């Protein structure tokens, strides 16, 4: 039973990892929106050259494993640029760039599902293309995209654990440290799994509540 004592002793240290984990997830989601939304707009409304560049970006960041991206940036790109970036920020950047790639496709689908008529109506009252996009298309697209976008959360959460490979002191890394210091394996791993599952569940609940809050009556996915 003494592993129970060990777990209780190390719990604060373990929990500390949650902040780093949530930080990684948060950046991925935020950067994902900041870069993903414009990319989606570019892919739907942009010129051929723009669509091509964005296409390459998406292909690259979705096609490479997270592990390879992390190694590439941590050992290769940042040092190559002469920058000494701490592991956490490398992780946040990689997850963010990758998140943008995935999320841009979700937003793109949502934008395309907003009916043609909306754009026509907006232009007919005199809005420019950009204004129409900003004021008519995007507000609708974002609501349609929300369920799909929320589904990114569990994926990003489990991907964040891979940042262990470059030493980010998040949940997975700390768990590993505790294990190597105390030689107790299964109970600690299972506690870690439990925390991830709780974060998963809790996060989805929060996202569902947000979905409910910004819902527009009569406006569902794919409504005309």
């Amino acid at each position: 039973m003494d592993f129970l004592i060990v777990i209780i002793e190390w719990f604060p240290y373990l929990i500390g990892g949650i902040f780093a984990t949530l930080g990684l997830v948060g950046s991925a989601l935020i950067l994902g929106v900041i870069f993903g939304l414009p990319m989606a707009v570019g892919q739907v409304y942009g010129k051929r050259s723009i669509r091509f560049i964005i296409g390459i970006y998406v292909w690259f960041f979705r096609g490479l494993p997270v592990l390879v991206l992390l190694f590439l940036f941590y050992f290769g790109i940042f040092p190559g640029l002469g920058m000494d970036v701490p592991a956490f920020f490398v992780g946040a950047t990689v997850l963010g760039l990758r998140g943008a790639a995935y999320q841009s496709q979700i937003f793109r689908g949502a934008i395309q599902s907003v009916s043609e008529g909306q754009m026509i109506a907006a232009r007919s009252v005199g809005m420019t293309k950009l204004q129409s996009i900003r004021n008519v298309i995007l507000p609708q697209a974002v609501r349609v995209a929300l369920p799909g976008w929320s589904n990114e959360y569990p994926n990003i959460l489990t991907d964040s654990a891979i940042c262990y490979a470059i030493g980010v002191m998040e949940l997975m890394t700390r768990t590993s440290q505790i294990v190597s210091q105390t030689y107790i394996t299964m109970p600690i791993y299972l506690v870690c799994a439990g925390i991830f599952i709780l974060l998963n569940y809790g996060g989805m609940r929060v996202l569902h509540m947000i979905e409910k809050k910004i819902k527009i009556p009569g406006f569902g996915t794919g409504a005309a």
Partner: protein
Amino acid sequence: MDQSVFIFQILLPVLMEGMVVTIKLIALTAPLGLVLGILVAVGRTYGSKPISLLCNGAVAFIKGTPLLLMLFILYFGLPSVGITLSAFVASLVGFIMCNGAYSSEYIRGAISSVKEGQIIAAQALGMTKMQAVRHIILPQALIRAIPGLSNEFIYLIKYSSLAYMLTVIELTGAGKMVAAKYFEFTEVFMIIGMGYLLLVTITTIAVMLIERKVAIPGMTQSGRNMLDIL
């Protein structure tokens, strides 16, 4: 050292060896993961209360836990309860469980998109429920699940890289060793990246060909029968 010498005489041979290991991992996982996915999907849809509860619980656990953690549990944790797996086998088991869990989600969705009447007609002919599932429901469900399953296969190609964290020298691991030895990180990892992109692109083309081959008139991949009468 001259770049091309480096790439062709030192790097690529090592990467090829790593690639072989990666392909082994994928080739062993995919079929077993599919079988597991089918069994779990059937268990969740048609199983008795305890079975479907067990299956749902297992899938929820696997989906909510990082794959890396699962691999550590299998490789570092199991020995403490008397089961010791080699790094390769532990990776395989982890991948099969992950692939199976996510595949079961796609197959389950596909099963529920098969029209209700199919099972009723099968039973009216005297088929038992299991016969109906095996001969009527599953063939249709698997065709509809192809997009989802191929998506999952592509994820498999990518997360096979995590085997390196258990010291399996697959593509990523092989490359890292060379990169560390010669301090050529960016280049090496870009080439490794191309390797994975190559695998993914080949897969995407193969899937398109398969979809075309098994297409049945009237069954669109979106899961809706073109002449939907119900």
